[in-house]
């Protein structure tokens, strides 16, 4: 397994995540897709750490921070999705468009 393989995996995962964000209508699914993007970054970081500078654990520490912060982000995100459901009776992102133009 070369570094390239990991990076390719991460890139594919990132693109799948971005694709999901753009195509999903369900707000929760969008959040899940965002998680995919974050995880792609984590793979990148850990792989880089392993292959370029294995002694210092900077990349791994970075990925732990990313995981923590992403958790916080998703927590807030889900709370907002719940609010959306209360107000709109739906979590379909396409229906939430009061604000426009």
């Amino acid at each position, binding site marked *: 397994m070369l570094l390239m393989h990991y990076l390719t995996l991460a890139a594919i995962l990132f693109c799948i995540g971005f694709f999901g964000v753009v195509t999903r209508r369900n707000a929760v699914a969008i959040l899940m897709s965002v998680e995919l993007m974050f995880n792609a970054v984590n793979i990148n970081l850990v792989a880089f750490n392993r292959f370029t500078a294995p002694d210092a654990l*900077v990349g791994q520490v970075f990925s732990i921070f990313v995981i923590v912060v992403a958790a916080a982000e998703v927590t807030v995100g889900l709370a907002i999705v719940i609010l959306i459901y209360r107000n709109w009776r739906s979590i379909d992102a396409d229906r939430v468009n009061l604000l426009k133009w």
Partner: protein
Amino acid sequence: MVNLTPLLPELFLFCWALVVLASDLFSKRRSASLPGYLSLAGLVITGFLLIPAHDAYLWGGMFVSDPFAVFFKIIFLGAAFMAIGSSFGLAGRMTHHRGEYFTLILFSTVGMMFLASAKELITLYVGLELTTIPLYVLAAYTKSSRASTEAGLKYMIIGAVSSAVLLYGLSIIYGLTGTTFLQQITINLSIYWLSYGELGPAFSIALMAILAGLAFKLALVPFHMWAPDVYEGSPTPVTAFLSVGSKAAGLAAIVRIFVGAFIAFATPVMAPRDWGSTLAVLAAITMIVGNIVAIRQTNIKRMLAYSSIAQAGYIMVGVVAASNLGVSAISFYVFSYMFANMGAFAIVAIIAERTGSEQIADLAGFSKSSPVLAGLMAIFILSLAGIPPLAGFLAKYYVFAAAVQAGYTWLVVLALLTSVIAYYYYANVIRMMYLSADPNPHHIVPSFPAGLVLALAGIGVILFGLMPEPILKLAIAAASSFVF
């Protein structure tokens, strides 16, 4: 034991935010006064704690307290002060979670302060998220309002995506250089470049991913789509804070990374892949789109949203210059922009509080019914438009001068032309207030904290237009934090 003195302002403000949170538990009265005034006091004290700051760093340079950081921290504190000052009316009507509202603004401010001081990617990222996550909550703070929750959703999802894109870029930079310290990154990149003669497409991808991620915070076109909706839907003081504090934070990050670490790649000298011209194109599109779309807006918050998109474009003109003059110019720009924009939003908040309307057309006859407020609004708008001798004019002048000096004359010509378009919608507000026959039924007297905010903003806009010397000195000192 590490000496934490450079971190003192942030630590203090963080603890103070917890105090504010607790204070709401003990304040029985159904008013926002106690936590509100406590927050204001905390911000002032933090400001005083900043004064003795001198060049200092922590943890091997992860966290620095240089003049640039201090300058931007002043801006964040000022923006937070004015946002909280104009929130009393809003908070007064809240039945729940009043303390949390102020606490969240303070938390976000702490995040911004961290961000401005970060010279290391992890710190920078955590600072950025600490800035943004409370803002997601604040945008959706009016829980029962469809508009507010929608604003929260849009802001949160696009924000999360942008931070993922940013992180992807950061991870590649880490992979290329094996370090997360900005200084070391510059050195390693130079070595890399000297050994191989170029940096390859991976570097370009990283550079632009970072740019895209941060462009979201500044609402540069085409990463701006969230801004008008979120600005319109959020509670007005939050909008004000978003448009100034959050924008300044994004700018601080961009300057730290691009001017601080990647300065060598600003021009095509070292590599054909320079970020300068890309950013110049973004700035150009941002100015054009922001100004043109603003013309047909009827909601004043939306109009100001597009105006602040355009303002970000002007700021980028200074970043593109990537010079000593450029950085001091944008520092001064953001400083003056803070007063004008916070002031304008504060007035919008006061009016909306009283009349329930955010339409530009409902400003008709405002100069008759509330002459002082109308006069202040006119001053803020004129400063945003860049009319001398107000601070906004000087700021624009500096930024454009920096860009001309850096050889971006075409960008300055474009900036000046688009600012002609901007006069169109700015003049429209003044026309509504001063040159409209309809009588306005509301005589509006702002509450004490709101009046304080307005006085502060008004004095700032006029005083720093006439006597910018002290601030310019600080701004120049801020620019000295970078090596050009």
